Each structure stands twice: as C-alpha cells, then as structure tokens.
C-alpha cells in the first residue's frame, strides 16, 4: 500500500510541477524566451499568501485570490519593463536579464521578509481521506491539487483552441511575423501569456507551500528549475507535454526519495531526464523541427 501512497504523493507533487511548467512552456513557445524568474514569482506568491493570512487573518481563499492578482500584475510588469525592450535581442541576452530579475525578486523578498524560513499554513481546509481501512491516507492538499491540475489543463487547452486570444497565442508561437500580418496584437498576446503564467504560478504556490510548508526567499528556485526540466522533458512549447513532464518528474522524485535515497533524489530525477532526451531528443511530446537545407 505504501507504494500507492508514494505514487499518489508523486502525482500530487507532479501536478504542482505541471502547473508551474505551463508558465514556462507557454512563455517559451510564445515569447521565445526562458523566463528564469518564473520560479521566484511562485516564491513571491507564497509570501503574499503567508503575509495576508498571518497579518490580516483573512480567509485563505481570499489570500490566494490576492496572490493571483498580485502575481499577475508582477508578471506583466516584469515583462513590460525587463523583457519587452529586449524582444529583438538574442535570446541569450533575455535569459541573462531574466536571471537579473530572478536575483532581484529573491533579494527583495530577503529584504522584506527576512532570512528565516517561514512556516506556511496550508490554505486547504479539505480534510484528509482515509482509504483501504486506514492504511492509505490521501492528504487534503492532494485531494485538491490533482483535480485542480486536470481542470486547469483542460481549461487552458480549450482556451487555446477556441478563444480568439488563444488562437492568437498559437499563431504567435508558430510564426510571429505572419501573426502580425494577420492582425494579431503581439504585445497584448505576450502580455496575456505572462499574465496567465503568473496567475498559475500563484495557484501553484498555494498548492505547493500547503503541502511543503517551508517558505524562504530561495524556495522558488529549485521547484522552478525542476518545472522547467519537466517542461523540456515533456516537450517544450507543448501544453500536454508540460502535464506529462510534470507528473512524471513528481513521481520519479517521490519514488526516488522513498526507495533509493533522499539526497540522491534530485540527481536521479535529472538523470532520468537525460536518458529520455537521449532517446527522444525533443522531449516526450515535443515536435521534431526539420531544418531546411
């Protein structure tokens, strides 16, 4: 039974990674950049929820809503100030700028909230579920996380396929110049992409810190890296790929931690990624781009 419980825990963690990975994969596909600061937006989201709940004592759901609003504003602002001026620049330059933004967010959080690790109070009020005569417990966090992840994926896929903005996003990701000629407002599209990604980051932070309650200025970095790995794993630019990559990564991480070694868990996760990419160099669901000679 404990294998099942680890598996479920892994799927739950993986769902969080998926939600974060969505932000990476959408921004990469549409704005053609690696938003290195994405993980730190999650950290900010976590701090917002924590502060709102502990100092204002508001209802957790309201705290999460406030976090979503603030993170969305943060994401769009960052895009406007730091990334938009560099849209014509080589992608490596934008990557470094994103790194600068990441440093900025981490150190601002350090300054405002201090260096000590905070203990996050879970926003989830759903009680844990006991199954199979008490031998299998599913935490309330997991009960919310997994279905929420599925809902988000479905909603996003519908949005991208059916809505005008969504289709515009796909157009920009495939051929930016052609999209402009078709009347797609590229500025608005990219801004919306960042908005969605950042909003999802806030949701992910609520779910993640509820399940893993230690919060500090560097708490967003590693999950950010792992989610980025998951996005590449599943095929960068692909929304279902983000889900597949995220879940797989979460499962591998938890199972490694449980059955092999806690310290080597991260190394094993990365190792599996490398193996996958050797077999399928564009990721699990990635598309092969044929180079024209």
């Amino acid at each position, binding site marked *: 039974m404990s294998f099942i419980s680890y598996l479920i825990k892994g799927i739950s963690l993986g769902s969080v990674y998926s939600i974060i990975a969505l932000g990476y994969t959408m921004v990469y596909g549409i704005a053609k950049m690696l938003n290195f600061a994405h993980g730190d937006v999650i950290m900010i989201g976590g701090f917002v929820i924590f502060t709102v709940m502990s100092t204002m004592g508001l209802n957790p759901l309201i705290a999460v809503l406030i976090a979503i609003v603030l993170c969305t504003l943060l994401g769009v602002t960052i895009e406007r100030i730091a990334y938009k001026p560099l849209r014509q620049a080589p992608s490596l330059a934008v990557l470094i700028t994103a790194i600068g933004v990441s440093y900025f967010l981490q150190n601002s959080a350090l300054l405002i909230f201090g260096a000590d690790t905070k203990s996050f109070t879970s926003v989830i009020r759903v009680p844990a579920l006991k199954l199979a005569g008490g031998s299998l417990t599913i935490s309330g966090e997991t009960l919310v996380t997994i279905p929420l992840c599925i809902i988000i994926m479905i909603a996003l896929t519908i949005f991208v396929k059916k809505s005008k903005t969504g289709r515009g996003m796909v157009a920009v990701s495939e051929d930016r110049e052609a999209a402009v000629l078709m009347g797609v407002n590229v500025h608005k599209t990219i801004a919306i992409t960042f908005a969605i990604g950042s909003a999802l980051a806030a949701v992910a932070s609520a779910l993640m810190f509820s399940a893993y309650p230690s919060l500090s200025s560097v708490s967003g970095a590693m999950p950010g890296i792992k989610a980025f790995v998951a996005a590449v794993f599943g095929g960068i630019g692909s929304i279902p790929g983000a889900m597949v990559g995220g879940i797989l990564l979460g499962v591998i991480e938890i199972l490694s931690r449980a059955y092999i070694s806690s310290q080597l868990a991260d190394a094993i996760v990365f190792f599996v990624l490398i193996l996958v990419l050797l077999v399928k160099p*564009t990721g699990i669901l990635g598309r092969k781009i044929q180079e024209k000679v």
Partner: protein
Amino acid sequence: MKIKATKQVSSSTRSNFITIGAIILIYFIFQMMIANGAMSNLLKGLLIPLCYYSILAVSLNLTVGILGELSLGHAGFMCIGAFTSAFFSKVTENTITNPWVRFPIAILIGALAAALLGILIGMVVLRLRGDYLAIVTLAFGEIIKNVINVLFIGIDHNGIHFSMKDAAALNLEEGGQTIVNGPRGITGTPKDATFGIAVLLLLLTYVIIINLVNSRSGRAIMAIRDNRIAAESMGIPITKFKILAFTISASLAGVAGVLYSHNISTLIATQKNFGYNMSIMILVFVVLGGIGNLQGSIIAAVVLTLLPEYLRFLQDYRMIIYAIVLIIIMIYNWNPKCIAWRKNHSIQGFLARLLKKEEA
C-alpha cells in the same frame, strides 16, 4: 536557442599581447602593493578568486561564444577538478612534501578529471538541439554536485574505500582517514594556491584559447557555430570538433576548480559554489563581457566579482542593486532603441562632428 557572437574574435596579435601585458603589469603592481602593505585585506582575499573566476569565464566563452552552445553546467567541471585535486593533495600531503611538485601534479589531475568528464558528457550532450543541450548540461551539473555530496572516500593501509552511505560504512582500519566526508566534503586541503600561480594559469588559459581560436581547429569550431550544415558540406567532422571545444572548456574549468579547492580550508559542494548558481553567475560574466569576446570575459569577471564586495557598505541592498545594474546593462546593451541612441551620441561621433564643424 541560437547564439550569435557579438564581436568577431580579434585575431590581432597586438591586442592579445596588450591583454597579456596588462595582466602581467597588474600582477606586479599588486605584488608591490602587498609588499608595501598598501592592499586591503578584502582585495588580498579576492586575488585568487579573481583569477579562477576569470578562467571560468574565458573557458565558458569557448563553449558559448566560440562553439556557440549554451552550457549551464560549467560549475560541474569546476567541482570535479576541485575535488579530485584536493583528494590527491590531501592524500599525498605527507608523501610529496614539496608543494612545487605536488601542486602542479594536482593541477594536472584536476584538468584531466574534468577533461574526461567533458568528453563523456560531451558525447551525450552535443547532439542535442540548443535548448535541450542547455537543460542537460544543467542537469549534469546538479548530478555531479549531488553525487559528490553523498560520496565517502577513506584511506587506510589496505587501500582506498568507497561508500555512498556514511563514513562508518567505510570500515576503516586503525590509522585510516576519511578524506571525502559526504556532505562535509574535504577538510584540510593544503593551501598551495598562490596569486602568482593563479595569474600564470589565467595567462595559460587565455593563450591556449586564443591560439586555438586562431588556428585551423578554431576556424572549424566557429564554422560549426555559424552554419553547421555548411561546415558539414565542407567536410568538417562536426562531432569531433564539438567535443574538442567542449572538453578543452571543461578541462580549464577543472583547473579553476583546483585553484578554488587549494585556496580554502573546507571544500564542500553547495548550490552556491558548484550548483547552477555558480554556472549561471559565470554565464552572466560571459554575456556581459561579450559572447565571443575573451578579453571582455576577464574584465566582466573581475568587475562583477569586485562590485558586490565593494558595495558591501550598501549592506542588505547590495544584491538588489547588483540585480538592477545587471538588468539595466542588458537593456542598455541590447535594446535596439538604446543601440541607436548610443550610435548617435557616441563620443567618437561627437568628436567627428566637432572636427567636421571646424573644417567647414
């Protein structure tokens, strides 16, 4: 991610000699300052770090700027170089007592270990497309750091013992010693690194890479960067040269690692010194100094290492200002409007217009 060089590598020998001369000059100036007690302790402690950060930046530029591949795991090679050399030095501390014999061997060991790792990783990684290559190098960097953290190596008169669990599992006999102590790393490495040796290694690194770039192999590597398909059609073996560049780059990072590990008393592998934090920091040096610009790498490494130290008076605001400065410099350098503004307001342009006015 396609990487474009910002400046054609200067094959002008004069400019390279000036750089080498400048480094030697600065070395002697610093030595005089130290002799006269005119150097702050802060700067004294930074002398060797400035050298190994420069070596790291220049060697990464070989991969990123000359070969044109984004590597986010450079610190992993530094890590291997640091640990293998430190292990050697610690173990032979009492048998090879002369540091002038022991340290050069340690340097060779570090360089070789990193080179071997470079070849292995290169064979795996270099056939992946840009972004995937970046992620896999990042992954490898993290793996190396993590594995070293669970490594226990001890020596007794029976030989070398390994374990991945803990020190006790080494089952060392009486008189045995744990050299690599898992997360506690290696303590007590002889501090054989000196400023002079560090500068020498920096000069060696610079000369090796400049000579490589201005040679047949260097041209082949840059051809692969600029247009792989055309290079193939010219009969250039792509994988061979990719691995060559990557390995040399890795080996030099290993040398930097040797300097690092022989300059501190406790060698541990953390996120900050051998994780992606370090790899990213070196990448920032390279991009800021100019992709493909080797002199720029050294200048950027020096400036960006000194800057946070000298901004210490700003206390807690130090890193935020650093981050803001970084963002501003990137935008100033790369935004088309800024580039145009700079062209119109450059000092050369101003002088030219002044001279034109005088003529008229």
